[in-house]
């Protein structure tokens, strides 16, 4: 289970929030807050927590149905698991920073005074609209060593062509490229919304001080976008572990697991290998990894986020 987002012990005492939030620790507010959460929690518990507990339960059983830690033993000794984990970390490392950086760049561009920004905005957003299954097929075509246009282009300018998806060295980077393409415009939308909420007076003030756009961005816009960045970062990291639709179509995790990702492996285990117990154990591993990531993200970042 993800540990609770830790309450920073040295962090601001209750009083601070109290000023910020018109909330005076009255019991009424307690009950009210939980009432607000209740509908969402009913659904969350029914369709997320309860199933996860079920799968945690089954992970503690052998396939014959008796209580045992055999699944976790298997997990520790499963080279595929470790490879998949490694792949996933590289995948996250390769996609998250790049797509976030691109997203901000895009958002700043289409938020500013750009010629034809309506068109550009649409262009950036199209990957989000396109269904992953269809997109994966299209990219499969782009990457294909024979008819694929990427090799066609490389060949035309005299560069060596490759079997992008058929080569363990290039398959993961190729998938990263596709993932970045798919995600950047998606994150852009949230940065754009964040930029829209920003008072233009701040930019005016720093313009007058002679700040370049870049400087203003670095010192004012970006810090003020931190709430969005925290959000996008958490989503990007979880997405790096979560989005696997393309694998079904593009590589199936191959060649030889070179592009296999954790969730895909879980899915395979559960629905191709029909081994729900081991899938449960893998799921727990995923929850722990992402939970740890979330704890780190929140402890490190949430404190630096300036909300107002």
């Amino acid at each position, binding site marked *: 289970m993800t540990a609770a987002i830790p309450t920073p012990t040295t962090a601001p005492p209750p009083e601070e929030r109290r000023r910020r939030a018109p909330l005076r620790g009255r019991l009424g507010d307690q009950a009210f807050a939980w009432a607000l959460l209740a509908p969402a929690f009913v659904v969350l518990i029914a369709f997320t927590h309860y199933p996860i507990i079920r799968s945690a339960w089954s992970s503690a059983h052998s396939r014959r149905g008796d209580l045992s830690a055999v699944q976790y033993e298997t997990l520790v000794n499963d080279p595929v698991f470790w490879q998949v984990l490694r792949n996933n970390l590289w995948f996250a490392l390769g996609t998250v920073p790049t797509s976030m950086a691109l997203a901000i760049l895009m958002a700043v561009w289409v938020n500013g005074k750009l010629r034809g920004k309506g068109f550009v905005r649409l262009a950036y957003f199209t990957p989000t609209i396109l269904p992953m299954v269809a997109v994966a097929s299209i990219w499969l075509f782009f990457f294909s060593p024979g008819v694929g246009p990427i090799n066609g282009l490389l060949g035309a300018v005299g560069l060596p062509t490759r079997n992008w998806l058929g080569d363990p060295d290039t398959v993961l980077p190729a998938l990263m490229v596709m993932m970045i393409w798919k995600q950047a415009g998606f994150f852009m939308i949230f940065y754009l919304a964040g930029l829209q909420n920003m008072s233009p007076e701040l930019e*005016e003030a720093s313009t*007058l*001080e002679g*700040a370049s756009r870049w400087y203003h961005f670095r010192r*004012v816009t970006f810090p003020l976008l931190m709430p969005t960045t925290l959000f996008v970062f958490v989503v990007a990291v979880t997405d790096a572990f979560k989005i696997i639709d393309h694998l079904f179509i593009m590589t199936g995790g191959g060649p030889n697991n070179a592009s296999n990702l954790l969730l895909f492996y879980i899915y395979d285990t559960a629905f191709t290998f029909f081994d729900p117990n081991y899938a449960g154990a893998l799921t727990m591993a995923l929850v722990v990894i992402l939970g740890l990531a979330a704890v780190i993200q929140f402890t490190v970042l949430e404190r630096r986020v*300036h909300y107002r």
Partner: protein
Amino acid sequence: MSEVQLRGVTKSFPDSHGGRTDVLHGVDIVAPEGQFVVLLGPSGCGKSTSLRIIAGLESATGGDVLIDGQRVNDVPAAKRRIAMVFQNYALYPHLSVLENIVFGLRVRKVPKRQRQERGLEAARKVGLDPYLDRKPSQLSGGQRQRAALARALVSDSKVVLMDEPLSNLDAKLRHQMRIELRNLQRDLGLTVIYVTHDQVEAMTMADHVVVMREGSVAQAAAPIDLYTEPADTEVASFIGSPPMNLLPGTSDGTNLRVAGSPSPWSLQARVPSEVTVGIRPESLAVDGSGPLEFHGRVRTSEMLGAETLLTLLTDTGEQFVARIPGIVRATEGDQVRLTTTPQELRFFDAATGRALVAPASA
């Protein structure tokens, strides 16, 4: 090196119905180098807009913006090297007071030591030194305003625009700041364009006052001239607190009948037959010895400490205000006689409101 000039500047904003609202209709302002120019005018008359156009934050719809004779309409704000105190402060919410103040210095890569020193000095000048580490959200209104002021003070800009920079400060601090600002301006030879609603600020600080009205300039003059010789009734009633009393008068060439005055006054100069007579509240004395007099009943009396404001209703139904030094304890309904002298009178054309030149005295 830093004369600022607006020449026939117009500005219109798009309104919500797709049309446009004209906000400035040909504004001419000259702020000579090293001068302290105050913009004065009713709320919404276009003062802030004019400043923003000078700063380059808003583009002029028409007309020229000149700095040192160079047309800068197309020069981006960042290149104009102008400092500004925004009416709503525009502090960076995520930066501390000190960081806010030295933001511009960091932009210009001033070395850290020097930056720190200058920031501290500016903070000290505005009395913010105990709050350097606070975020703007932890400051009181006046403290925020002072932070904004300090931010403009540390900059090296030769032109400084200030939009009501002292409006949220108490009288004492404001007095201090007035002196501080004026000294700084003189010492550094800054060209300052300063928007204020405070008459005292306008009168004490300005080399030059520009009175605006509904998007154009009503009068531009040295402060004392503005007070003594307002260009028209509107300026007259805008300057001075409480403003000049304006009473209708009729003249037959030799005698002037002023509403509310029991007897006609003899004239020594030609005035049109219909005039508006202006008398400053402080020109009236209770039971004084001036040759011109009014009779009326006290309607309200406001004691301000150093002086008392009497609002009178004459027998003819005219209402006007007198400002009497000291504390005068008058109750509503008291009958009083007010006097004044001919030199204190100002005459305006009744139809146009324009001042009649070389105002004739009785």
